[in-house]
């Protein structure tokens, strides 16, 4: 079931075109307010775009020029958002049976279907419970089952794990990985790991426009835009090649390994390396690293067990004890070192 | 109610229900007359709508299902005849005069109409716009006593309410109201009351679905049985 969409929502400055092939899961990444939810709302039929058209599996969902507009319940697109929004007055089983019943299936048959989907998301034992008694993770599982039980031609997931406790996210990701396999779906996420584990394709939206798209591994491993690199959490230096290294506009010379194809001197290239590969020192380090840069700490940003040290051009991730030991604070002067073997250089 | 009529009509051709619109002051007497009338006319049921006469006229004008109208004054009956709502000519069936009502024990020691003009006595009257108020104005004019009421109530019921609760020291109401209120009030008669006599006319109505029963009721009221009940309630003959 393939989706083809082009839509403009003027009031929100969103203008996107997107194709989802049959059985493909597309991850939509992008910063807050970039238009990800807007995109899903347009496809689901709860927001009317100002221009554009969409077809799902050959059926027209809407065509603004032609004045066609299918209401949400006739689209075959189930939408699952951050909040599971289980109907509080129905049991878990009846929540899941809601889709089949709405499409005219009888009570008993609908419950049959519901039970099967609950088992599929490993929530079969919750069937008789009331939504109020479920944990966040349980509720979201049931919501997934409910969306799937409606037998949608296209599944739309808007940050389905954003509201969950970190401890239940991995298990939920497993469930999604299983149910999304071979299914047409669009998943909006802030989380690069979701893209990595769940999606075949990645679309990056920024300020209402699609700025990068392609197969997941390509976009994340070899980002070509600064933004793509940001999503993958990588440092990216851009500039012409000079002595096999990349000379940035800031004047730094970044040495690294060229891939299969050596980038010729003078050609525009990008040097990509992980902040984790950057070590931080109070005095200029001796020894092997060829890339050593003096810098001033601008910001410290906690990232789980790590602290990201931001300087004007390069970010470094160090552990908390290191911050304490080096007594790092904004304004501290430091030296950053990266082994050339940790830097990948390829044509921009 | 109409389905009842239909079913009753099916097995007893004489069964009818008439609705009598009667001035609120007639409530006691007419309830009793209604019972007597039903006894005398098996198969006829009488129901009542008691309210102020002016309300009743406007309700009849608006198409209320009334068979008989008994007004507390001729003015309101005239409105009904003027609109051709009446069947035949109205007949006067009773008169009523005013009496002073005081709370039990007559705490303000009211003996005469003059006492009502005394300073510090709280008197309630009906507003001149309603029949009992018009009568009160008539009494004042006839006697030359100038009463300054603390309130000009909208109906006899409201006057009586203030007297019964002891809020007012005295009120001018109909003789029949004093009687109906029993020991809740003490009546004080005054000679000037004879100067203003309120006449009660009754008529069957043009819109009646049971004109015969309606006429029969009106006649019953003016007849001996009806007059006896009215007299017992304090009404005088016209």
């Amino acid at each position: 079931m393939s989706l083809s969409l082009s839509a403009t929502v003027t009031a929100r400055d969103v203008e996107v075109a997107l194709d989802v092939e049959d059985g493909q899961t597309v991850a939509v990444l992008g910063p807050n307010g970039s238009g990800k939810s807007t995109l899903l709302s347009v496809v689901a039929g709860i927001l009317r775009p100002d221009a554009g058209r969409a077809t799902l599996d050959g059926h027209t969902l809407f065509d603004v020029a032609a004045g066609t507009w299918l209401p949400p319940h006739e689209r075959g697109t189930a939408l699952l958002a951050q909040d599971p929004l289980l109907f509080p007055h129905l049991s878990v089983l009846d929540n899941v049976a809601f889709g089949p019943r709405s499409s005219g299936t009888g009570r008993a048959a609908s419950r049959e279907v519901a039970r099967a989907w609950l088992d599929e998301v490993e929530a079969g034992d919750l069937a008789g419970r009331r939504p109020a008694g479920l944990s966040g993770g349980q509720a979201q599982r049931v919501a997934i089952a409910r969306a799937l039980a409606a037998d949608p031609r296209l599944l739309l997931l808007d940050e389905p794990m954003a509201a969950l406790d970190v401890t239940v996210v991995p298990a939920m990701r497993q469930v999604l990985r299983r149910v999304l396999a071979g299914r047409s779906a669009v998943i909006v996420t802030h989380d690069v790991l979701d893209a990595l584990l769940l999606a075949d394709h990645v679309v990056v939206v920024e300020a209402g426009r699609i700025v990068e798209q392609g197969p997941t591994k390509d976009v994340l491993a070899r980002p070509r835009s600064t933004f793509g690199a940001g999503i993958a959490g990588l440092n990216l230096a851009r500039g012409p090649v000079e002595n096999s290294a990349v000379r940035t506009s800031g004047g730094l010379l970044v040495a690294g390994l060229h891939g299969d194809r050596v980038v010729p001197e003078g050609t525009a290239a990008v040097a990509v390396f992980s902040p984790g590969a950057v070590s931080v020192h109070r005095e200029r380090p001796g020894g092997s690293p060829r890339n050593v840069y003096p810098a001033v700490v601008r910001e410290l940003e906690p990232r789980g067990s790590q602290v990201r040290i931001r300087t004007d051009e390069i970010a470094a991730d160090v552990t908390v004890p290191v911050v304490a030991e080096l007594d790092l604070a904004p304004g501290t002067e430091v030296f950053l070192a990266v082994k050339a073997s940790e830097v990948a250089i390829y044509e921009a | 109610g109409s389905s009842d009529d239909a079913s009753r009509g099916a097995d007893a051709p004489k069964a009818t229900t008439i609705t009598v619109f009667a001035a609120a002051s007639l409530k006691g007497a007419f309830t009793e007359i209604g019972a007597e009338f039903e006894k005398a006319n098996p198969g006829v049921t009488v129901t009542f709508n008691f309210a102020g006469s002016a309300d009743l006229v406007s309700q009849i004008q608006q198409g209320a299902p009334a068979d008989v109208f008994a007004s507390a004054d001729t003015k309101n009956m005239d409105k009904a005849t003027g609109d051709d709502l009446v069947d035949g000519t109205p007949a006067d069936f009773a008169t009523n005069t005013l009496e002073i009502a005081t709370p039990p024990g007559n705490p303000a020691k009211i003996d005469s109409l003059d006492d009502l003009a005394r300073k510090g006595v709280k008197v309630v009257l009906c507003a001149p716009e309603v029949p009992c108020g018009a009568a009160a104005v008539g009494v004042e004019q006839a006697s030359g006593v100038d009463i300054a009421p603390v309130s000009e109530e909208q109906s006899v019921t409201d006057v009586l309410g203030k007297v019964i609760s002891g809020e007012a020291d005295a009120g001018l109401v109909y003789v029949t109201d004093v009687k109906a209120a029993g020991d809740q009030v003490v009546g004080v008669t005054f000679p000037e009351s004879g100067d203003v006599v309120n006449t009660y006319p009754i008529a069957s109505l043009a819109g009646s679905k049971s004109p015969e029963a309606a006429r029969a009721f009106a006649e019953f009221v003016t007849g001996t049985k009806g007059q006896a009940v009215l007299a017992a309630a304090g009404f005088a003959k016209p």
Partner: protein
Amino acid sequence: MASASWSGVPRWVWVPAGAGALFIVLPLVALATRVEWGSFWSLITSESSRQALLLSLRTSGAATVLCVVLGVPMALVLARTSFRGQGLLRSLVLLPLVLPPVVGGIALLYTFGRRGLLGETMDVLGLQIAFSTTAVVIAQTFVSLPFLVVSLEGTLRTAGQRYEVVASTLGARPTTVLRRVTLPLVLPGLAAGAVLSFARALGEFGATITFAGSLEGVTRTLPLEIYLQRETNPDAAVALSLVLVVVAVLVIGLVRGTRGSQP
């Protein structure tokens, strides 16, 4: 962050609050003290009292049903759509809440009466509404409808549309959404509104006497009976008033109970 141990209400506030509570409660106590308890039972079970109470319960019930039938769609339209003039319409719909009932009764008479706006049309159709039990129900509905609309509109707005959106993307058509999601979700609010409407209908007096008259067994509801009894039988009036008070307290307590069970 609210906690049981910090109320933050200055202590002096209890004084005017107590005065206010007394101001409302004392009259009810005064009413109760006037009841002739010896004859209470016989007074409230006399034929006319019984008829009036039954009529009141029947008509108030019918009015409540009518309020639900008309009011739920009105609340939906007010809460869920927007159109030009909606604000004015909302003001108009609230009007019976603050209009003297007698004026409401006059207005109803001018609409449904024989010489009213719709009177002739209805006459032709053989419909005679004024002064029938139907008229009582209409008068009660007129004054009670705003209670239901206002309280339900609030509940609908508070509940939001999120569940409805989800239901529609699951394939439910609007009517199914209304029946299986919207209405069950706002049921407590709807119940509260319906009960308030019922209570208001039970107490309705001015519009009824003006529009429907006061025919025993047909249009003479409990408040009209109380008004009428006041003259000849004040004891009965007081006793019946107390019955009304008790019914109203029970009914309001019911609303609060329903609301209280919602967080």
